[in-house]
């Protein structure tokens, strides 16, 4: 599974970077969302992918039976998802406010306004 995921994550990164390099701020937001998803998947894939063995300890046991998926990257990604949401909300509102004040959605024109 990992080779396929590697290609998929690579493509997602490419898509995210491409969108972030566009001049339209709305596209920047889309790029940001793609990037956070891609980064989560990158961590998830790098840790190795395991089918059907969630990191849970069955009732009555002290350790999980057999090999389970690595819980640490999952914990990292879990917080990353929530924070990405917070950051996205911030970015979106920031962009909206910038647009309201500057009346442009072109990043290069926004640059010209601070000189």
């Amino acid at each position, binding site marked *: *599974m*990992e*080779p*396929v*995921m*590697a290609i*998929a*994550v*690579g*493509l*997602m*990164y*490419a*898509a995210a*970077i*491409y969108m*972030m*390099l*566009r*001049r339209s701020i*709305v*596209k920047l*937001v889309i790029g940001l*969302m793609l990037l956070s*998803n*891609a980064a989560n998947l990158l961590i*998830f894939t*790098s840790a190795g992918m395991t*089918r*059907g063995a969630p*990191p849970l300890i069955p*009732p009555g046991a002290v*350790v999980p039976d057999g090999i*389970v998926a*690595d*819980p*640490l990257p*999952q*914990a990292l*990604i879990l917080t990353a*998802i*929530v*924070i990405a*949401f*917070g950051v996205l*909300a*911030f970015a*979106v*509102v*920031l962009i909206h*406010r910038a647009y*309201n004040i*500057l*009346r442009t*959605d072109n*990043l*290069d*024109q926004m640059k*010209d306004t601070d*000189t």
Partner: protein
Amino acid sequence: MQLAVLVIYLAALITPWLFVQHQHRTAYIMALVPAVLTIWFATHIPLVAGGEVLIHEYQWIPGLDISLTMVLDGLSLMFALLICGIGTLIVLYAGAYLKGNPAQNRFLVILLAFMGSMLGLVLADNLITLFVFWELTSITSYMLIGFNHQSAEARKAALQGLIVTVAGGLALLCGLVMLASIAGSYSIQEILGSSEALTEHPLFVGMLICLLLGAFTKSAQFPFHFWLPNAMAAPTPVSAYLHSATMVKAGIYLLARLQPELGESGLWTILLSSFGAMTMLTGAFMAVRSTDLKKLLAYSTIMALGTLTLLIGIGTETAMIAFAAYLLAHSLYKGALFMLAGIVDHEAGSRDVTLLGGLRKNLPLTAILVAVAALSLAGIPPLFGFVAKELLLESMLGGAFHSFIYVFVMVASIFVVTVASVIALRPFFGTFKAPKEKEKIHEPPIAMLAGPVVLVFLSLVAGIIPGTVGSWVTLPASTAVAGGVVEGYLALWHGLNLPLLLSGISIAVGLVLFKYWDAFRSRLQVLDPIIARGPERGYFWFMDAIVWVAEWQTRILQNGSMRNYLRTIVLVFVGLTGYTLLTRYQLHWNWDVNLYFHELVTVGILVAAAIAACITHSRLGSVAAMGAVGFSVALIFILFSAPDLGITQILVETLTVILLVLVLFRLPSFSNISTTRERIRDAIVALLVGVLIMFLIMITIDVQLFEPISGYMIENSYTLAHGRNIVNVILVDYRALDTLGEIFVLALAAMGVYAMIKFNPATSPGSNHYAGTLILGEKKLAEKDIIHSLEEIHQKMLEDQNIISAGAMKDRNDNDDDDEDDSPNSSYDEDRDHDDSQAAKRKAEEHDDDAENEDKEGKKS
């Protein structure tokens, strides 16, 4: 000893309160602190002279091997005595000198802080602690030199001193870290005796150069000497304290400290003696050219510092004895001379010797003190300066050196005699000359005279009983510098020998030169253009270069275009990571694909949706595509054993769609601005990143550098943390601190969103309609609403009709003409507040507008 340093800082802390009640008398109270410390240190003399080394241990950051341990041996004791002893006199002097100056309390605070730092510097055993105090002296000295901050010259001089010494400080830090890593310890006491391991290490040369850069800049060695004369812009107490007895000697102190460890090296000897000799000659030469009393003294200080460096470089036992003696002698007479120069300046109104003359009738005591101190400077018996000079000549003859060093030393001694005569005779003899009236010139208050009197008296006493002073104070210091017991003695009379002869010659020639001093000086003016090209030119050139480089790199790197930044960052990332991947690990591809059809479909949807989000032209399409991406990701999480992640992703995805619906559709639709060429370029950059990430994943899966730490977490999740969901246990127990940080980030993001929405004139007219920020309260608003004149009423009316602000808007982004075709845009903001239906209508218009905009932009490209 830690307490000693602390006491001085505490004294600095309470000075402002005392000052409120006692004004300039605060200085006299504060002088008690260093005075008591001097006595306290003096009680240690017998112990230390007996060869003991006192170590007071105190941990600071044990994890980094940084301690506040302090060591009192001969060298630090001598320095501590000088710092506290002269410090006492300087504080007294400053009390009188700056009487009536409203900033005197500030001066005392910084002076005491400097004193504490300097004391810490000479007592510290840990290299990092030493560095911290070193930098503290640089900073406090910056504030002291720039004390008269209204004067541009003082500010410039202060900044110059700071930049030179702090730049050297950076080099010193590098050198100290290298030293510690070679020697394996940050403690000076532990490094002692590991000189062989040091000198043979490949990093030795680099380390030595860094250390010397630090020491040379601090101690104003050639070619960094130029900041010291400029620093004479400081008030006289500062010059007398920092620039003669203490701060500039910090570099010398460091060299002396390191002499036992590094003295074996040939490079050390060569560098120190040649730079020392060069500095000595430069100082002496520049001193002869000067007419300002303080400049004369400053250059002769440079000469003395050069001599001290030279003596450390020579490194023989005699040289070590000479070093300690010379250092003591210099501190005593130079401190006195600076204070006396300050008195002359204070009373007669000038420091220029060509403008002064015949002051001995008005300032009899000052004249006598100057004369005695100058005798010591010139090295004439029975003063301590003579003892030191004899030793200097003796160790010079004892060292195996090129003859040019003899010449340098002789020329310097001759010039010094001349300088001493100028200082002692010109202002006080001959016909009366002074900018002030004769009747107004009188002896200063006792507090100002106390310092010079004590120091001159000590010079004299030390000269008469050099043996006692030697065995109590200077020989223990020499022992510390030499790293082993030094056998020797200090005496006034060494018998008829070569040093005495050379001494005599230098005095005679020096006096002759004094006779023709004015003529000599005017001859030397020929050299002015060459001197103007001295190292100080280099400093200014360097400062200009920094500004130029800053401008250049700002232009290149910080051009304000986010896309350029991003492209640069991404390409650097690809370059560095790609290089590491290629060189460290083989690129390999494990085609061991083991997957089910439904997984492949999920991944396929994910990729297709991501690409669709990129190429779609409608916002709705891209939001839908993003939803598909998010849910496929969630599905992947669930398929591959991460139920928590799957649930979280689905919930967040739902909220994200709500968020986008609320905000994104109020933004303009996608505009296609870029040309095809730009698109291809960006696509290539993006694909490069994609390919790199792909290989990165493939390699990280196979390479395992460390044992995963999650093993521990899995095993102990139930037994220790009582939880069966290991992911949650990690979040709230194992790594709860991370989670704590993360919820703070989330809270901050929420507050940011809230602030941006609520404190926005467009969306909340009630709150800060005009100011638009939280900080400017309602008061500001009320004031703005007050109308004072007819023009303002007119203005107000125009504003209400959105004519002015619309115009202002137009100025702000003139590129956006097409936006403003049908309606003034800023009215959008305010109308929205008043009239919902109108806003809705405008929104519809705007929508059209956007489409139009898109078309136009498209054509443009």
